[in-house]
């Protein structure tokens, strides 16, 4: 539970900084020089990564013991890891905000083992080591739990994903002086996390929640899970190639990257089919309706954001013009929200009421409020994505497509597309409103009862 609570606090922080960034896009000197854009962006993206990791950890501590039908190997270790991670994370963010980045690098002895200053991997080396310790301690605890109990497919897939996450994190420590090599292996962390092992984690959490909420036979769910993660890895591993188009690697990646990223929407499409199929075949109507809404929502939004918006610009001839434009930002926002934010909110929506002694879910009022939060945040994110896409298309048209000499400069282009940035900022404010409503739903008392289950037996499976 502390993992989920802390994750949501960081989520709120992330959105505040998102709004600051959105405003800086149009009012360039907002908060300058106190919080320059690079600092706010670092806080925004690092908070996202850390709170999602907290979410994954909370999810694992919740579902692995239950799947294994045993107790967590060491609750004490889990608590210690929580505090190490929370303190390290908080100190890092405060360091970003209150110490000049170059000074922070000196203070943390970046010279000895330089790993800082790369996108998403801005953390000081010692913090990276701390994250490694937390991940290893966490996985040890989870594995010992999984091994002593029932070995379900969900647990196996989840643990495989977590081990992959830890192994790939090691590439964060590799920073050669050759930029082209640096970038190549940087993608081993970034791409193979979000388009590889994280999909395993997402698939496992989704499968778990669907078993619980729809009551569909485990055998059926596990079969789907295997097919989905098979598609994810088959398309996603070589799909890394779509990042190798323009950073130095040879031309065969143009073909490999294009073909395999064309397959990358498939696992997400399968997830949509999976969720909607399981709901149609459900054996029970769990009174926690909002958790089901999140579960279905995450598959649809992940398919749109990661699948459709990814495919829009992952073919090499298209990417040649869109690479590093606002199109990338559009895709990034919806993909992260749809796939990973929403899957964590799904498991929170399911597990939190149970941990608070409400086995059938929150009261109807709280659920309705949470649904308002769901729709406001989700629709706002759709608009954020659409406006950024509009900005990106115009940017490509003005800045990328014309020949040198005719093309507009970067900054002149930014002035031309400012209207889209204003619209994005307004959508961001609606997202914030949705988040406030969502968080507010946690403070409403009361719970659903077995009688709220419309049809079928209300099994006492909590």
């Amino acid at each position, binding site marked *: 539970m502390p993992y989920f609570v802390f994750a949501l606090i960081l989520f709120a922080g992330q959105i505040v900084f998102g709004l600051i960034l959105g405003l800086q896009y149009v009012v360039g000197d907002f908060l300058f020089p106190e919080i320059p854009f*690079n600092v706010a962006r670092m806080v925004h993206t690092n908070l996202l990564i850390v709170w999602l990791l907290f979410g994954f950890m909370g999810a694992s501590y919740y579902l692995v013991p239950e799947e294994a039908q045993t107790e967590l190997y060491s609750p004490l270790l889990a608590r210690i890891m929580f505090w190490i991670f929370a303190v390290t994370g908080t100190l890092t963010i405060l360091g970003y905000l209150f110490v000049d980045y170059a000074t922070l690098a000196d203070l943390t002895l970046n010279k000895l083992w*330089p790993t800082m*200053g790369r*996108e998403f991997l801005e953390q000081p080396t010692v913090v990276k080591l701390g994250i490694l310790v937390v991940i290893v301690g966490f996985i040890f605890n989870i594995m010992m739990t999984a091994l002593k109990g029932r070995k379900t497919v969900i647990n196996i897939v989840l643990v495989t994903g977590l081990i992959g996450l830890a192994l790939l994190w090691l590439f964060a420590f590799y920073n050669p*002086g050759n*930029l082209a090599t640096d970038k*190549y292996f940087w993608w081993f962390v970034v791409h193979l996390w979000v388009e590889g092992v994280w999909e395993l984690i997402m698939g496992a959490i989704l499968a778990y929640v669907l078993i619980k909420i729809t009551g569909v036979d485990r055998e059926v769910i596990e079969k789907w899970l295997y097919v989905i993660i098979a598609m994810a890895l088959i398309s996603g*591993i070589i799909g890394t190639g779509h990042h190798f188009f323009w950073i130095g*690697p040879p031309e065969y990646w143009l073909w490999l990257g294009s073909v395999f990223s064309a397959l990358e929407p498939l696992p997400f499409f399968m997830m949509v089919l999976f969720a909607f199929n399981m709901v149609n075949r459900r054996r029970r109507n769990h009174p926690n309706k909002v958790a089901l809404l999140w579960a279905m929502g995450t598959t649809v939004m992940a398919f749109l954001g990661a699948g459709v918006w990814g495919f829009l610009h992952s073919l090499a001839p298209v990417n040649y013009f869109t690479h590093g434009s606002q199109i990338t930002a559009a895709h990034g926002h919806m993909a992260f929200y749809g796939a990973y934010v929403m899957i964590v909110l799904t498991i929170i929506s399911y597990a939190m009421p149970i941990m608070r002694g409400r086995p059938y879910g929150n009261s109807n009022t709280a659920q309705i409020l949470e649904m308002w939060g769901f729709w406001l945040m989700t629709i706002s994110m759709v608009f954020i994505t659409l406006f950024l896409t509009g900005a990106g298309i115009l940017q490509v048209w003005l800045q990328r497509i014309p020949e040198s000499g005719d093309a507009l400069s970067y900054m002149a282009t*930014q002035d031309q597309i400012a209207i889209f940035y204003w619209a994005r900022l307004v959508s961001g404010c609606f997202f914030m409103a949705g988040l406030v409503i969502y968080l507010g739903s946690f403070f409403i008392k009361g719970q659903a009862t077995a009688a709220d289950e419309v049809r079928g037996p209300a099994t006492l499976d909590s």
Partner: protein
Amino acid sequence: MAERFTKSMARNIYVGGSTFFILLFLVLTFDTQSRAMPERDNRDQLTEQVEHGKHIWEQNNCIGCHSLLGEGAYFAPELANVFLRRGVGDSDVFKAYMNAWMNAMPTNVPGRRQMPQFNLTDEEIDALAAFLEWTSKINTNNWPPNVEG
């Protein structure tokens, strides 16, 4: 899904498919790194000064606003080809440009995006310029499409 399609078949596709593609990825990585990249990333010109420049680039979190080879933030101009855009392909012109630019920041024009003053020494600015010049010579399959980046 048809009933003939069993769970163990699904598992085999997962295990077999991912193993195959992980191995293929490793082979391709080996080929890219050992055979192709040395000819494409002009590593013979990677001097100590260039490495020092990369370090300064990282130490000041330049990627937090700029993009480099299209990766990074999208708040400020692409810099992998700034050597061509602002230095017109000449090292001395570019170094002079960089020195003037870095020392003129921030502009403090109201409402405009601001670049912080990083207080770099002349020697550090030269190293940064050398790094960006080296970067502009990586074979990127002709990206970006034009000089504006």
